[in-house]
């Protein structure tokens, strides 16, 4: 796992009683917890239950995490375990439901690993984005929500011809962000391997 001093700092500060650091941890990793819950197709009530339990476990373990840098993995595993617990409890309460002995579907370890990688990458991207000057954030927000250049030109009051160059400058700025160091170059290539060499057995 990548060494992430920032997570370590957040965990230490939260363990020491700093609510802002805790909120930052929640902000960063809630999307991953949410995403795993939705993979299990839990009801909104069950999702609430899982999320309470996951964060409560984290709160009680804050001072005891052996490797704070491995927090995303810990959270993913804890979420998965809580989802399975809720599903099992639901099956037990519903005699007409699943066949006896049928286990709730377990997610592939690779899926969870992917969630962890994406969570870290997404958190880094959002952090890099948040650092950009306001005009860049506005422009990029409009671009990612699929506004056309003419809409952007009208709303932001900039000439259409300058959108392209501004987009390039803003993205270049983002690319240089310290948050993205290590992601842009290697993590991603691991996630989306280039098709090098032959595929086994066509």
């Amino acid at each position, binding site marked *: 796992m990548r060494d992430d001093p920032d997570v370590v700092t957040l965990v230490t500060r*939260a*363990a*020491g*009683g700093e*609510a802002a650091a*805790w*909120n930052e941890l*929640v*902000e960063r990793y*809630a*999307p991953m*917890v*949410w*995403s795993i819950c939705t993979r299990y197709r839990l009801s909104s009530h069950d*999702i*609430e239950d899982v*999320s*309470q*339990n996951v*964060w*409560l*476990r*984290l*709160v*009680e*373990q*804050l*001072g*005891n995490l052996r490797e704070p840098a491995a927090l995303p993995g810990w959270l993913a595993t804890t979420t998965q375990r809580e989802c399975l*617990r809720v599903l099992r409890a639901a099956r*037990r309460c519903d005699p007409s439901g699943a066949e*006896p*002995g049928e*286990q709730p579907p377990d997610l592939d370890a690779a899926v969870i690993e992917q969630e962890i990688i*994406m969570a870290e*990458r*997404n*958190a880094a*991207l*959002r952090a890099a*984005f948040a650092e950009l000057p306001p005009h860049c954030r506005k422009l*990029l*927000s409009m*671009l*990612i929500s699929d506004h056309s250049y003419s809409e952007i030109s009208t709303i932001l009051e900039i000439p259409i011809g300058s959108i392209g160059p501004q*987009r*390039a400058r803003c*993205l270049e700025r*983002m*690319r240089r962000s310290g948050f993205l160091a290590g992601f*842009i*170059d*290697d993590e*991603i*290539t691991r996630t989306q391997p280039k098709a090098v060499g032959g595929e086994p057995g066509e």
Partner: protein
Amino acid sequence: MSDRWDDGRLLAALREAIRARQAVPAEFIETGRNVYAWHNIDAELAQLTYDSSHDRAEGASVRSETASIRALTFTSAHLSIELEVTEDALLGQIIPPQEGTIEAQTRAGPATVTEVDQVGCFSFDPVPASPFRLHCRAAEGTDAVTGWITL
């Protein structure tokens, strides 16, 4: 550096990151934030070190959940709390045996406090509503809180 993302790829990745965050309902984030109120830096954490239901669940073969007594042990640096859950009560003992008070905290509703006798025994009748945790203040000065318990 040949692998550095071009603009299109970076923008697509950013879109995905922002959408992943937007997909999360505000209440979901709120729940996570609120949980911090349970943070207690003064009490030592008593971790779950034994759960009789794990022995059964691991086998996953027979439906033996009718077994009425569940035993749990929580251990902190200075003491252990042994629990037995019966149909209508939660019985426990503090090891090493010592007097004190013990509080059952639930997420909703008030906490229930009960005395721990000289041999470290206590009981809650009825069993506290799940999930709950126990906060033990032993006479010898140890202050320990268990992890959350869901029965």
